[in-house]
Each structure stands twice: as C-alpha cells, then as structure tokens.
C-alpha cells in the first residue's frame, strides 16, 4: 500500500512537472529568441542558449565597451569616442591559406562613410600556433592553444563619436574560428574567403544583451504604444471602479423603486456578445468623430456588468449593523459607501481592477478597429503590425513580444495570490 502510494505520488509529480514545463517553455523560448542574433534564429538546429545570454560575452562586451568609451557608461552602453581604440582578439586555426583582414562594412547605398574614414584598423598576428593544427590532422585542436592569435585594433582618429562599430573579419577559406573575445554575430562564407561578422564590437553589456530590444524599439514607436495602453487601461480601471462601485452599492444597499429592474438590465448586458456591438459602436463613434481617440478606446468599456455584479456580491455580505451605526451617526449614502463599504470590499475592487486592466491591456480586436494611426495604437495593435512587418526576423519580434507581456508578468507576480483567488471566486459565485 505504502509502495503503491509513493509510486502514485511520483507519477502525479511527474505528470504535473512535465505539464508545467510544457506550459512555461514557450515563455523561455520567447525570451531566448529575443536574445538570438539573426544567424541563430535562422539556424536549423534551435539555439537554446544563445550567445547573448552567456556571461562570458557580457563581460567581454562590457570591457570592449569601456575601451570604446571610458567609464561605466561605456561599459554598459558602449560607443566609439575620438581617440579611443578597441582591440578584439581572434584565435584562428588553419590560417596558412592566406591573409586575415578586418574591414568595417560600408552600409549599402550611402555616399559618405565617416566611421570608415575615421577609423584606423590594424590586424596583427600576436602568436602563431602550431600551424593551424595541420600537423596532426584529424585530431581536434584545443582552442586557445591550437590556433594563431590575431588582434584587431580599431582606433578612432576622427573628431566625432560613433555609437556602433560593425566589423567584418575576412579569414582564409580553410581557416576556422576557434575563439574570439566577443562571440561573432555571424559566420558566412563567400567565394574567396570566410567572413566573421560582428554587428558591434564595442556594444557595452546592455547594448549587447538588449540588441534586439533596441532594434524593435527603434523600428516602431513602442514607447507611444506603451503609453497608450497604460493610459487606456488605467483610465478604464479608475472610471470602471467608480461607476461600478456606485451602482453596486445602490443595488446592494439602497432601497429604491425599480432596483430589481435596473439589476436585471445591467445583468442583461452579459447576454449581448461583444462582436454584435463592433459595428454599431464603430458607427456611433465614427459619427461622434471619436475614431482614433482615447475616448473610443476607453468609454465603451467603462460600465461592466461583471464588475457591478462582483462588487454587489461583496457589498451584500457586509453586516447591516455597520451601516445602521453609520446612519445613526448621520452619515449619508455616499459617506457609507466611501467610509464603510469600499474599505471592506477592497479584495473585490482589486479583483475587478485586475480583470479590467488585463482585459484592456490584452485587447486586440477593438483597438485594431478604432485606431488608424500609429500614434494611437495600443501595445497589442502595435505588436500585431510589428509581427506583420518583421515577417521572419524573429529576434526583434520576440523582443517586442516580451516587452508587450513584461508589465503584466511583473505585475502578476506581485498580486498573484489575489488574482488567482479572484478568478477562482468568479467561477464559484
């Protein structure tokens, strides 16, 4: 019996853990991809731990960033100040076939190229290895020992500072890269040589780690999207809380003529599905010239039958004596609501606030319909267009997705318990 029991427990834990891992894994994959460079996302074997997530590269990018720009700021954000020089070490095997040459790739279609003109590039063979591992062919060379060490030094001889130093190191066709100060962002081969590519050799730790985030942020006005979403959600929650607590209090506590009818009318809105309202509400908004304004995003969702119902249930459970005592002391209804009912129903208010915030933050269809300019898009609509536009550039796409869910995830960990209880309660009542 005891044996069977423990076997059963083990199976339960096993099933639950595998399930939980399956549930969580897409999140990990989202974050991991947001740190992948283009070559890693395009790789046919998924890169589970991309270079950008390795501590070694953070340290290297910090040091390289400080070489390009002095101080902590340089270490974090990088850059290429006048007079500074940045050195990158590469260990190569089998270099006998030709020269190692470093260049700064010129962007396509530009006339002047100041970074390239200002920068002095020196490539030096520091120590020669046992020629390229060529002596005992077939055995794998030990990195660092087996190869020749090359040092590429870039010096800014100009007057201006640059934010990025892209670099391309051309190595002979047969040569292989054993190690490098900073992991390269791409290895490509062309007809005469192989190329080791770096998007930025003095990125700074932050600049290196959050490269895709910066790319996404620069490709679309995510700051604006965030503001729109946050503003919409906060106003919607505050207005919704006000309207719902007023109505719920009247329905729970104040005897007035027509109370039942009002309650039925409010609950009746639950019967009307949202998609029926899309078009008429759009027409009304269009005629009010409210399309592409915050009003269109906020006003139709302020009154919520769910919120009123939830708060009414809370107010109903409060003991009548409290209100009687307050009334004897001369408190009116609003005082009773504000001083007694609201403080005691805070869990209910919080639950409704969380639901409303989440609903507003995560909504796509309605904001998609009522916004038509980039500066009015909410984060979800912005993300949707970003996903459409980036196509297969999954690094920035996942970076944008991570940004879009991050506020909710962080917030969730703070109010996790209340939130789950709130959801559970909505199912029980």
């Amino acid at each position: 019996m005891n044996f069977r029991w423990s076997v059963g427990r083990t199976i339960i834990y096993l099933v639950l853990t595998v399930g939980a891992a399956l549930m969580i894994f897409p999140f990990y994959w989202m974050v991991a991809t947001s740190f992948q460079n283009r070559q890693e996302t395009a790789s046919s074997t998924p890169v589970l731990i991309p270079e950008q997530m390795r501590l070694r590269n953070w340290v290297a990018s910090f040091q390289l960033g400080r070489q390009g720009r002095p101080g902590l700021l340089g270490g974090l954000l990088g850059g290429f100040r006048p007079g500074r020089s940045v050195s990158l070490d590469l260990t190569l095997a089998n270099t006998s076939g030709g020269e190692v040459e470093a260049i700064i790739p010129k962007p396509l279609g530009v006339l002047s190229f100041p970074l390239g003109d200002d920068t002095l590039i020196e490539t030096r063979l520091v120590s020669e290895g046992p020629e390229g591992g060529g002596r005992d062919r077939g055995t794998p060379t030990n990195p660092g020992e087996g190869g020749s060490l090359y040092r590429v030094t870039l010096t800014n001889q100009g007057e201006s500072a640059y934010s990025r130093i892209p670099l391309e190191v051309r190595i002979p066709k047969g040569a292989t890269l054993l190690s490098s100060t900073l992991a390269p962002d791409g290895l490509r081969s062309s007809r005469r040589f192989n190329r080791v590519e770096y998007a930025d050799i003095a990125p700074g730790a932050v600049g290196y780690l959050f490269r895709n985030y910066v790319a996404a942020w620069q490709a679309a006005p995510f700051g604006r999207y965030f503001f729109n979403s946050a503003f919409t959600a906060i106003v919607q929650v505050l207005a919704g809380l006000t309207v719902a607590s007023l109505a719920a209090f009247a329905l729970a506590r104040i005897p007035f003529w027509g109370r039942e009818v009002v309650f039925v009318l409010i609950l009746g809105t639950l019967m009307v599905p949202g998609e029926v309202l899309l078009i008429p509400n759009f027409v009304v908004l269009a005629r009010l010239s409210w399309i592409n304004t915050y009003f269109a995003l906020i006003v139709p969702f302020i009154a919520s039958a769910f919120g009123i119902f939830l708060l009414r249930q809370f107010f109903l459970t409060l003991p009548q004596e409290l209100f009687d005592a307050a009334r004897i002391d001369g408190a009116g209804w609003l005082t009773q609501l504000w001083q007694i009912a609201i403080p005691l129903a805070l869990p209910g208010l919080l639950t409704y606030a969380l639901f409303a915030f989440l609903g507003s933050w995560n909504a796509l269809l309605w904001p998609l319909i009522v916004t038509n300019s980039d500066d009015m898009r909410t984060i979800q609509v912005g993300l949707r267009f970003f996903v459409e536009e980036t196509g297969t550039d999954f690094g920035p796409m996942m970076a944008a997705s991570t940004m879009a869910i991050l506020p909710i995830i962080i917030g969730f960990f703070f109010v996790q318990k209340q939130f789950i209880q709130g959801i559970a309660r909505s199912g029980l009542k």
Partner: protein
Amino acid sequence: MAQEQQVFSLSGSRRALDERWQPRLWLAALLTGAAGLAGAGFHRLELLGPDAAGSVGGITIGLLAVAATTQVALSFYLGDRTRWIGTASGIVTAGLLPIAGSLPLFGIVWPGLALIGGLLLLYIRSRAQLSERTINQLSGWLLVIPALVLMMLWVYFPAIYALWISLFKDFNYLGAAEFVGLENYRIALRDPRFLKSLANTTWYVVGTVPLSIFLGMLTAILLNERIRGLSLYRVAYFLPYITALTAAAAVWRWIYNPNAGLLNWLLGLGDFRWLANPNGLFELILSPFGVELSGLVVGPSVALIAIMIMSVWHFLGYNVVIFLAGLQSIPKEYYEAARIDGTNWHQQVRYITWPLLAPTTFFVLIISLIGSLNVFTQILILTPEGGVLNDTLSVVMYLYFKGFRDFDFGYASALAFILFVITLLLTLLQRRLFNRLFGGEAETR
C-alpha cells in the same frame, strides 16, 4: 445669512417642500423630453446621420443635454445656498461649452458633466430637506444612472442598432443606405466563405472545448492531491492565460515556423508548413489507406489544428484555476467517509468529485464555448489572411474582414447576429441537457 435662515425654515416644514418638489420634478421631466426632441432635431441629427436609428442616438444625446440643463436650472430656481453651487457649475459648464464645442466630444462630455453636476446638486439639496424615502429614491437612481446610461448607450442601443444595420445594403456611416430587409441573412446562409468560417469555428469548438476541459480538470484533480509547491505549479499553468494573445500567438508563429522553428526540429519534420497547410486532419490520416475524402468530412485543416493547440495551451490555466477552486469547495468529509468504506481513487473521482464538480464544469463549459465561438486574435496573428483557401477563417474574423476591410456593415452585422443566435441557442441547449443529467444543479448559480 439670509440664505442660512431660508434653509432652516424650509427644513422645518419638510412635508410641504416634498409636495412642492414633486410637480417640479415632473415638469422637469416633461421639459427634458420636449427640449430633447427639439435639441436632437436641430443639433445632433445632422451629425449622427440620415437614418432613423441614428436619430435615436441623437435623441438620446439631446435628451441628456437638456436634462442636465433643466436640472441645473431647477436647482437654481429653487433657491437657498445650493443656488451658488448651481451658479458656479453653470459658469463652469458655460466655460466648457466653447472648448467642448470645438472638440468632437462635445456631444457626450458636456451633457454628461452637466447631468452629473445637476444630479449632485439634487442630492445635496435632498440631504437637507427631503424625507428618507425620497432620499433613497434619489440617491439610488443617482448612483446607478452612470452605469445605466453607459450601458444603454454602449450595449442596448448598439444591439438594436446592429439589428437595424443588418437590414441595409451598402450601409456605411457616410451615405444613404438601401433598405433590403432580410436579404443580408439570405445571402449569408448561401455564402461559401461564411459557411466555411462556420465550419472552421465548429471544428475549433469541437477540438478545443472538450480537450481543455478534460486537461484542466485532470490537472486540477492532480493539483488537489495535497502536493508540495502547489502555488508554484498553479502559477506555471496560469501564466499563459494572463499573457496577451497577440504576443503568445507571435511565439507560436515562431515555434511553428517551417524552416527554423522549434517544432519541426523536435519532430524531425523538415520544413513542414504548419500554418499554410489546408489539408484536413482526417484526410491526412486516411490517405495512406487509399480513402479519398472531400467536403466537411476532411476535418479541420492542419493549420487550424496548430491554432487549436496554441489556444488550448493559452486557456488551460483558467480552467485549472476554476476547477481547483471547485474541488477545494468540496467538503473533505465526503472523501474521508469514502475512504472508510474502502473505495479507491478512481471510485472517489467517479462518485464524489465528478458529480460535485458538475456546476463548475458547466460554468467552464459555457465560458469556453462562448470564448471559442469568438476566436479571432490568435488566428489573425498566426494566419493573417485566414489561411490557405480560408482554411482557418473563423466567423469573427470573417466578420472583421467584411466589416472593416470591405466596409460592408450591413452584411457584417447580419453575420454578427447569426453568431449571436447560435451562441444563445447552444447555451440554452447546454443548460437543458445539463439539468437533465445533473438534476438542476446548474440552477443554483
């Protein structure tokens, strides 16, 4: 000083004032109605459009505007110290008018503010002099009116308006539309794309609802076995539910990517195109046996199945949490009694958990059913055009395309109503079925 005295003397004869008050309220209501019609006719009608339903909206807004004005005026007319508040609010309102008038939101913000101000004034007055019953009437209505007005404006009126729009051809908010009666509905029932979307949505419901209920219940039952780290597991299962569908679908789009996606690598499928595959599931299963299928029986397309998997992942956590709460509300004594009688785990689940969980199951069933009938976001992200040959097009997505790409509002409204009726019928049907199976337990909620 004189004001103070007046208040004092008035509150001394409360009954008299009540009688004085009542006819004025009626008068205000009458004035409100008449002036509202006039106001609507003069001012808002033009903005709201040529059709009759538009003027209903205009009348509503006009009514609000005039109600507010009347109430402010009334409070002023009745005198005493609220007059000063009334005056102040009147000045503020008047000051707002030019600003509001130049803004497009003039139509609702001004009457809304004035209405709230007027009602507030009434409330302040009533506190001082009215009987408790009247106070209750006034305050009750005062407190529910914001919610009620908003719901009338944004739910009830639009619902009727949608029905009205669905009777027109070429309805848009710019020009005149042609009244065609039920023609849109007739077209819809013969529209192959709509029928396709209906079939897809049906497959989606059939595929996701039972599976997510089963998995949710199973997980909840396991989690309820007094395991360690319950909250950790619960968070893990719940996390997908709180993430935005847009972002979650973007991740799955990456996972399903044919060339470098994770899934093809895991399954060793090469460059299998998950999201651009219109082949039906049953078709794929049966084709090695030489069975050729066509029409509806080919089953949901591979792309639709990919979407279903993603959706089950996303919504599972909600079911787990609800089921877990349902399980925790079952008294422990039942299980103890059952254990004394020597039952095993399966019997406990079968004879205690399952029947006592029935109301929760019903709740989850209804919620998931309504949710899955409205599936839209994940399909838009995963297959932006509704898939190859419309193989992932859902009803709401078709409605979105018809309404907001083709701007055929009449037809889209008709589609919305058909979906509404289907949802309603299914919900009612389930309720009946459930009551027959479980003896009316669902009625308790």
